[in-house]
């Protein structure tokens, strides 16, 4: 066995350029696969995190029949005395913040325009508003006792040319099935870098929202953010809210997770194409090498080497190439992926409309995982070794006498 390894190492060294080029092809393929999987994973994870922080939170508590998209204000669909529940939840160690929110539908009336919007009553002091406070582009954030102030998103402010201090009329659905209209002053303009969300969401203090919608001490949900996404299940277990249900981000982002699965399924096919190209390089290079060395094979055969051993020789060459290539590939790919995981690819203004239930930020941060690196390396190794199989068995089938007479 040892001598086969030695011979194949020598064969590789004899044709340095060819070996180097083959290894580089494998290396680039491995690095590319690594980059692709990290990018797709990062893209999905980035938008999932964005979605969780801005829209759904890690966990939500609401009434059994409540449906977010209906923005129902019926008492049966709401949570009574929400602050008590939320302060109790904030006592759990893994919880970063919890606060009640009220969701109502409304219409912005400005000049001749009517635009349908979602009105979100928030507790201005809660840490759950972090992402919105970070994203203020003009004016001030809300204060709890503000009775006339609202925050609007950047796209709405741009399309209607509205600035802090300007007034807009809001027509808001109330819990008794009526509508109420009131003039509000824009206190500030925020952006979450997600136009679809920003266009259609208006914030006002929870108390004001409760007053205008006549929902008194009720809220649509308790919105909960955690320090770490991985604690979700544990926290969900430890919440006691009889009569209400607790939903986690997986249930709240169903459509999103489906798109994620879809992308993963697609990536499988894209990865196959990359592996296909790499394996073609190896297959044809080795095949060429077999025919080029026909006479050599004849000599080896004549000296008594068995077909099986010749096959092992070629397979060993392929394996060595594969190992070398994958190692170089990891050496190139890992630092590259890590670099981009820090820097991110910037893509400008992005995001699917908020109504479709998924959002995207404006940069992709590749998210490398050890698992991906391992599966990519194994796939590249296996494909390369498999590609070596056909040329190797061709070589083993040569008749020594005929091979010796070959021109090459």
């Amino acid at each position, binding site marked *: 066995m040892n001598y086969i390894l030695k011979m194949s190492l020598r064969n590789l060294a004899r044709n340095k350029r060819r070996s180097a080029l083959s290894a580089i092809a494998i290396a680039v*393929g491995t690095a590319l696969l690594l980059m692709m999987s990290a990018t797709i994973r990062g893209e999905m994870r980035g938008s999932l995190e964005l979605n969780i922080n801005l829209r759904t939170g890690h966990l939500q508590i609401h009434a059994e029949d409540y449906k977010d998209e209906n923005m129902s204000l019926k008492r049966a669909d709401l949570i009574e005395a929400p602050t008590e529940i939320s302060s109790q939840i904030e006592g759990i160690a893994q919880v970063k913040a919890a606060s009640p929110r009220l969701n109502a539908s409304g219409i912005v009336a400005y000049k*001749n325009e009517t635009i349908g919007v979602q009105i979100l009553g928030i507790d201005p002091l809660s840490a759950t508003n972090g992402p919105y406070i970070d994203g203020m582009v003009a004016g001030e954030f809300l204060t709890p006792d503000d009775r006339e102030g609202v925050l609007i998103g950047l796209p709405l402010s741009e399309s209607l040319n509205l600035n802090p201090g300007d007034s807009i009329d809001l027509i808001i659905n109330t819990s008794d*099935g009526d509508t109420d209209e009131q003039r509000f002053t824009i206190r500030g303009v925020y952006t979450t870098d997600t136009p679809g969300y920003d266009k259609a969401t208006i914030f006002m203090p929870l108390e004001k929202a409760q007053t205008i919608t006549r929902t008194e001490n009720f809220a649509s949900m308790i919105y909960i953010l955690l320090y770490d996404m991985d604690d979700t299940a544990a926290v969900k277990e430890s919440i006691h809210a009889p009569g209400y249900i607790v939903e986690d981000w997986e249930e709240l982002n169903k459509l999103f997770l489906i798109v994620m699965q879809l992308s993963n399924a697609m990536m499988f096919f894209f990865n196959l194409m990359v592996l296909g190209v790499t394996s073609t390089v190896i297959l044809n290079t080795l095949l060429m090498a077999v025919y080029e060395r026909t006479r050599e094979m004849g000599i080896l055969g004549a000296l008594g080497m068995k077909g099986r051993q010749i096959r092992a020789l070629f397979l060993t060459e392929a394996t060595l190439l594969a190992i070398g290539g994958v190692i170089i590939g990891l050496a190139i790919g890992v630092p590259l992926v890590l670099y981009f995981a820090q820097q991110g690819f910037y893509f400008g203004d*992005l995001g699917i409309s908020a109504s479709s*239930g998924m959002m995207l930020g404006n940069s992709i941060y590749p998210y490398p995982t050890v698992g991906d690196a391992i599966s990519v390396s194994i796939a590249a190794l296996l494909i390369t070794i498999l590609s070596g199989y056909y040329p190797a068995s061709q070589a083993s089938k040569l008749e020594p006498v005929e091979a010796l007479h070959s021109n090459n």
Partner: protein
Amino acid sequence: MKLALKLAWRNLWRNRRRTLIVVMAMGMMMSFLIMYDSMILGFETAVYGNAIKLSGGNIQIRAIGYEDSYSANPMLPMGNGLDAVQAAEAQPGVSVALRHANTGGLVTNREGVFPIGIYGIEPEKEKSVNPVMQDEFLVDGRFLQADDGEVVFIGKGLADAMGIGVGDRIPVSGKNIHEEMSKRTMTVIGIYDINLASLERQVVYVSLKAAQDIYDLGDNITEVILFTEVTGKENPIVEELNASLSGYEISTWRTAIPELSSTVEMKNAVMTGFSAVILGIAAIGIFNILLMAIYERTKEIGLLGAIGLKPRQITFLFLLEGIMIGLVGAIVGTLMGYLITLVLGIFGIDYGFAVDMVDYMALMGTHIYPAFDINLTLQRAVMVAVISTLAALYPAIEASRREPADALHHV
């Protein structure tokens, strides 16, 4: 020259096996590249195609002034639109052109007031293509018919929010052509459910005839929307339409839904970037194999030198061979790639096994249908031919410079 061509062509086929390996390598690599490219296009259509259909189609033809208008549904009549439909449906790549009379308005009942878009449609034509008007999504009542009057077809999202069902009557106000609100009490005739409540709440459908009556449009419509076969290849169609139609504003979903457009563009930029790397891998492979094929023939080069060919001539001969093999490889690759894409395009790649999305069938398909792009493929073919030429040039120069006697002794 003629002799050199003949020699090169003969050399190519003298060692059939070698040439076949090279051509096979090029063909396989090109097929993978073409499949990769065509899957990017197919991916867009699979993931975003229906979303685009749901939110205004691939291409919109409207009256001039629409873009500058302030409102989401301005009332800008554009005539009866039949000329636009005819011109659009004559374009290859356009699967259907639909006439709409759209306006914006409100529905109100005791549950509240809901801003909506009111779309006047031609029911027969719309039925075959509009994702919401497929049998599997109809939960109650029936679809619209051409001669329907004051009846509306609504989504389950709106029905739930308003607490209404088929047969109930709701007051629908919409802006008419004189910029006034026309209010009518309409009967709910049918309800669809595509499991996207927020989207379902935004639009109600009425028959084109009813919309024209109620909003005083006469024979006018407000837009013609086009569904194309492949998402992402709208620009050439828009150019053709701009040339053949005048007096309209033509836009694509890229202007109508910029955030979706940028998502798609980002995906494309990333995937195209990756495809350049794949091309690089293929280039390394082709280069490597051709290098081997020529170094293998060092002895032959020595012989050519010994019988009096000048280095320049030898280089030229090998260069010709490189070009020829590159061309053959590119042609074979294009054909292979085309055939594979064609077959996959007909049957589609089923990725349903990996995804559990029965609930969202209206939004996404379960198959990806790769779409062949001739321009991109030709680019790939040229690249393969160029790489092959370059790969031949380098060893040919090196080999031709060697002393014939040395080269002859090469083992």
